C-alpha cells in the first residue's frame, strides 16, 4: 500500500541552526500538509500546499518556516533558526484532493538543544 515517507525519523539540532525535514508524499496525491505535535499534545496544523504554492497556513507558520517541493517527489519543511520550543514531532500528510482523507507519514522527531 502506498505510504507517505519522512526522513529523518529523529533530528537533533542546536538552537539557532537550520533544519530541513523531508517528506515523500503518495505519488498521485496533489495536496500536501505539515503538522506539528508537541509531546502528548494535540496535532497542530502548520501549512497546506497545492499546485506548487502554499494554500493555507496557520499562525504558527511564521517567517522562520518555509516549504518547498524541489522536485516531483519531495516536499520539505525548513526551519531557519530553530528555537527550543520547536522541539516536537513533525508530521507530513498528503491527500488526493483538498478536504479528503489525509495520509500521514510516521513523523520526524525534532529535538532542539
Amino acid at each position, binding site marked *: 500500500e502506498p505510504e507517505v515517507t519522512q526522513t529523518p525519523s529523529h533530528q537533533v539540532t542546536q538552537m539557532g541552526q537550520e533544519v530541513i525535514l523531508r517528506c515523500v508524499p503518495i505519488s498521485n496525491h496533489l495536496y500536501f500538509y505539515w503538522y506539528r505535535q508537541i509531546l502528548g499534545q*494535540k496535532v497542530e496544523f502548520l501549512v497546506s500546499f497545492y499546485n506548487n504554492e502554499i494554500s493555507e497556513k496557520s499562525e504558527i507558520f511564521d517567517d522562520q518556516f518555509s516549504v518547498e517541493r524541489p522536485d516531483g517527489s519531495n516536499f520539505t519543511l525548513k526551519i531557519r533558526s530553530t528555537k527550543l520550543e520547536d522541539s516536537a514531532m513533525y508530521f507530513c500528510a498528503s491527500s488526493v484532493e483538498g*478536504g479528503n*482523507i489525509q*495520509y500521514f507519514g510516521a513523523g520526524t522527531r525534532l529535538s532542539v538543544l
Partner: protein
Amino acid sequence: GQQVMQIPQYQHVQEGEDFTTYCNSSTTLSNIQWYKQRPGGHPVFLIQLVKSGEVKKQKRLTFQFGEAKKNSSLHITATQTTDVGTYFCAGGRSVSNYQLIWGAGTKLIIKP
C-alpha cells in the same frame, strides 16, 4: 478563531466497557474526520462524515455527525486492548477551505 473542543481528555475504562468521545465546533463544519493515533505512532484516518445527522458504523465503532454539523461523537462498544490510543476529531472549515481544525484528542486507556 474557529475551534473544535474535544472531551474528555482521558478516559480510563475496563476492557469490555464502552468508550465515547465528543467534539464540538464553534461554527458549522463542512465535514468531520476521525483519526486514531496509537502510542508512539502517527494519526491514521478512520472515517469522514459529511451529511447532517449522519451515522456510520465500523464494527464496534459508531460515528455521528450532529444535525447542525457542529458536533460529532465516536462511540466504541466493548473496548478491547487494541483500541488503546488517542482519538482525534478534525473538522473541515468549509467546502473551499481544506484546512482541518483538530480537536485536542481523547486518550483511551484500558485499566489492567
